[in-house]
């Protein structure tokens, strides 16, 4: 019984527009790029501009829509404050992200317009992930997103690293998808339900004693949890992330680093706090263990890294540890902390990648991307403003007070303390001390280490520097009005 109303279309307006636009863009690209008559023109630049335009329009469409709180498409998708907030954030951040990629793609001579098509598809998949309201919709959206990611990871077809990364990601991702499917089917098998709302009603009042199906349900929930944690690279399911970050081309790494976690975290929130809230209450130790392991592995892993992208991958894992720790309280304070953390993390990693992408050196006649952490030695002499912004970013990541990273950590730690997870809080503080060390070591390298060979930095492009300055302004000044973020998060949590 398919029952579709016009509200369903209205709620899905952004996605519909987005998909149609991408298809049009694809047709445009296929026709123009293969045109013998026009000499197989390179239309990467062209398509990137058009993609940005699509992002702008869809951001506009999302932000200007009335926020309907409804489930649409036979309750497969949900439209509420959370999905609205996450969608608009994803679109805004992707807009900024696309602007920092311009110059990189041009300088690296990435002439394949498909890059943009696939990225756009990944973005629309994220939009779907953030509003999925059914186990099936969730699975499909995640698969949609993952397939786009596999392609992106192996995008540099001529590079061994890139193909290796794509392959690893694909195999492991398929593995986790299998786990996800198994979990879904177990849940369906025991309850006969796939809808989040139905499941949450079904699980009301579940305790260990009064439910006979509980063991199988546990099994299913843990499987789904593992699959989701795999996607956001929480330890011990983080193994793919350093290799994929390292192997993929940097523009793709930046995509992986900035965007997908936002959608997935909202999905995890929906799943743990709404769908299986009553069951997960009995399973919160799994969250605690994963949070603890992520923090430990992320922190100690990052300490030993020498390359930028691996370093970022490990530091991401430790941030994910904090987010999971926020969720592990299973209270709204914790969820608030976690969502606040992911927003701040997204902002910070946007800044990080805009800086890392502008580490280009000139070796006449070409330019190359810097890959090692030690390349930034005495950066302050070459480009003091870039060095200064990196300092701000690193301080924010390390959680030094006026920067938003501090507030994020504080909210998570407060919620941990409120829920008596004191051991986890102590470990989190201890590990963030260690992480402080390696962030500040970079600052020390930039400012106080002297080198004899001085690299010649390629000037930063205008678009990248615009994004850099916007994110810097936000990072440095947001503490004056930190409730911008916190009110936003509160609004999102007002389900």
């Amino acid at each position: 019984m398919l029952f579709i109303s016009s509200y369903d279309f209205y709620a899905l307006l952004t996605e519909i527009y987005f998909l149609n636009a991408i298809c049009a863009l694809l047709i445009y690209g296929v026709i123009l790029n293969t045109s013998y008559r026009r000499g197989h023109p390179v239309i990467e630049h062209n398509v990137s501009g058009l993609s940005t335009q699509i992002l702008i329009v869809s951001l506009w469409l999302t932000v200007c829509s009335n926020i309907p709180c409804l489930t649409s498409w036979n309750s497969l998708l949900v439209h509420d404050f959370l999905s609205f907030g996450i969608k608009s954030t994803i679109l805004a951040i992707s807009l900024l992200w696309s602007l920092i990629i311009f110059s990189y793609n041009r300088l690296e001579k990435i002439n394949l317009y498909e890059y943009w098509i696939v990225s756009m598809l990944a973005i629309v998949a994220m939009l779907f992930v953030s509003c999925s309201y059914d186990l099936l919709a969730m699975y499909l959206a995640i698969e949609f997103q993952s397939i786009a990611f596999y392609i992106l990871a192996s995008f540099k077809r001529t590079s061994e690293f890139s193909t290796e990364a794509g392959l690893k990601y694909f195999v492991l991702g398929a593995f986790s998808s299998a786990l996800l499917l198994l979990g879904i089917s177990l849940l369906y098998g025991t309850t006969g339900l796939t809808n989040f709302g139905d499941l949450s009603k079904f699980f009301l009042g579940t305790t260990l004693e009064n439910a006979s199906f509980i063991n199988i349900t546990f099994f299913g929930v843990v499987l789904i949890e593992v699959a989701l944690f795999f996607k956001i690279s929480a330890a011990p399911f983080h193994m793919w992330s350093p290799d994929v970050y390292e192997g993929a081309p940097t523009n793709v790494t930046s995509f992986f680093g900035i965007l997908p976690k936002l959608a997935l975290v909202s999905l995890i929130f929906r799943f743990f706090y709404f769908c299986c809230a009553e069951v997960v209450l009995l399973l919160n130790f799994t969250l605690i263990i994963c949070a603890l392991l992520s923090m430990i592995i992320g922190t100690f892993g990052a300490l030993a890294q020498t390359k930028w992208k691996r370093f970022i991958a490990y530091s991401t894992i430790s941030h994910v540890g904090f987010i999971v720790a926020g969720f592990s309280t299973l209270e709204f304070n914790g969820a608030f902390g976690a969502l606040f953390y992911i927003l701040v993390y997204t902002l910070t990693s946007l800044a990080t990648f805009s800086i890392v992408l502008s580490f280009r050196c000139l070796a006449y006649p070409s330019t190359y991307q810097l890959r090692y952490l030690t390349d930034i030695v005495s950066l302050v002499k070459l480009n003091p403003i870039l060095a200064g912004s990196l300092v701000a970013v690193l301080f924010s990541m390390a959680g030094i007070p006026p920067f938003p990273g501090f507030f994020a950590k504080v909210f998570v730690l407060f919620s941990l303390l409120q829920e008596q997870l004191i051991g986890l809080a102590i470990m989190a503080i201890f590990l963030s001390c260690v992480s402080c060390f390696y962030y500040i070591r970079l600052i020390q390298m930039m400012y106080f280490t002297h080198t004899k060979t001085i690299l010649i930095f390629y000037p930063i492009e205008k678009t990248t520097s615009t994004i850099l300055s916007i994110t810097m302004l936000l990072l440095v000044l947001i503490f004056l009005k930190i409730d911008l973020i916190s009110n936003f998060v509160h609004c999102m949590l007002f389900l």
Partner: protein
Amino acid sequence: MYLLIIALPLVGTLVTGLGGRWIGRKGSNLFSTTCVVLCVFFSSIAFFEVGLCGVPCYISLSPWISSGALNISWGFLFDSLTTTMLVVITSISSLVHLYSIQYMEHDPHCPRFMSFLEIFTFFMILLVTADNFVQMFLGWEGVGLASYLLINFWYTRLCANQAAIKALVVNRVGDFGLSLGIFTIFYLFGSVDYEIVFSSANIYTNYSISFCGFSINTLTLIGIFLLIGAVGKSAQLGLHTWLPDAMEGPTPVSALIHAATMVTAGVFLIVRCSPLIDLSSDVLLLITLLGSSTAFFASIVGVFQNDIKRVIAYSTCSQLGYMVFVCGLSYYNVGMFHLVNHAFFKALLFLSAGSVIHALSNEQDMRRMGSLANSLPITYAAMLIGSLSLAGFPFLTGFYSKDLIIEITQISYYSNLQISFGVYACWLANISVLFTSFYTFRLIFLTFIKNTNSYRKHIENIHESPPLILIPLILLAISSIFVGFLTKDIFVGIGTPFWGNAINILPTSCNLLEVEFMPSLIKWLPFVLSSMGAILAYTINVGVLKNNIQFAHNHLFRKLAFSLSKKLYWDKLYNSFIVSPLMYFGYNISFKNLDRGFIEFVGPYGISRTIKNWSTKVIKIQTGQLTHYTFFVIFGLCSLLLLVPVWDFLQFLVDVRLLVFCFIALFVA
């Protein structure tokens, strides 16, 4: 005008200290001296207004610290006690400034010296004008700092460094006592303002503090803490060791700081806190015992010192003992009277000694002097006047206060006064008179009368000091003769209204009149004793016994003399029983074993090492093999699933704190 008294020295020190390089030696001399002389002028007016006309002045400037119940403001209190101190401080300070212009003539750092003298004056004025304990403590610490700077003025000399550090460290003990006292005052009264504390002290007589099972009256405790402060600053027995060593500083410094003003800060503190101290008879007893022991001890040690300045230093110590114990008998006004008189004649003695040292090209050993009366007649006259005043020769300044103190001790055994411990003070005070007179005349004979032992080179160059040195000497000599006579009736006259509410005197102690009715035999006693001392000094040094030194070979005498010239081994005792164990502990245990050892190993070094180890271990998991990655995913999944059924059981076993502990243990391992 009142604020100008405080501000002028500050301006002086800032200008000479920071601008000395530009205004030069003469400029800074002129500027600083002008500042202090103006201060004398204003202080005299203040003394007239407040002391003589009886109009106390109270200035509240601005809040300083305001935190919860603790409210401290910059406030200045000018009562008769303060103005008396002000007159003493500023007049001695200005004379010393004048003297230093000549004395430090050849020193390249003259502006710095002047600046230090000024800063000392500033802090001393701050100390006496404060209207609360904390501001007083600021001045207290400030004069300690100034004392350190001035003792260490010739900072290239090892002795000066040692003496300065010793002065600072020993004073720190007293300062610690004083700060504890202030804390206790705040604890008890909830305020540190004089007016609140003193006016409400009566209410708290029955309060007590329990500490380690002992219960002690709070006011007694406060009194003991304040006494410890006073002992440190006023060089009373126990913490007196820094004062003789402080003579390493330039002589004007000794005159200003270590004779006339700073060392009397302890006495000032006791007098200022008289309303508190009077309420606890135990503290009064302690003060009396300590003060009289100091007077006696310092006088006998002074007998066998050979350094001219050290003799005077011990005499200062001894006179401070007099002031303190008379306060302990609750005659604070007499203590203050002696303080004022002592400031004049002791400054005179020091400055004369400085003149001698100046004339003899920095020779300080009395055994290498002699016959200087001919070459330095004015200095000799000044020194003689100072010494007679010190010895309590009738109708000189010292006589009026010192004689009065001794007579007070004599009447203290009257049974109705209930201060029987005064007898102890009486005995020691009288014996001290003998020794005081002996060593001061010994100083005169050795320096001025006896045949010279000096080097020919020194004698050839000898000359009377220039006028800028002599003017302060003459002025001080005149004061040393007349001040006592002139101010006797103001300070300790029968029924004088001078002190007003500034000091509190026990009702039992309002019996100065008794002194006048003592048997005349006893009234003669101090004079007889001091004459005996003088005659003894004469006989031994220039008289009959000069060449007949058989008694000096007596075994017992030799031992006694030796131990006295070693200052009764106080330094030795402190060094071997306190200083060196503490140094051993500080270096070998707390520094080498704890700080550089255990804490370093567990802390910075250990943690950084283990973190590095751990991070390499964590990295090794990342093999790059797809199979391993899959294994880890499965392993993680399975362990999570396996934990599900046993978690309820494990939950009780695995305490989070235990986990953290294990983790840290792993780290340290």
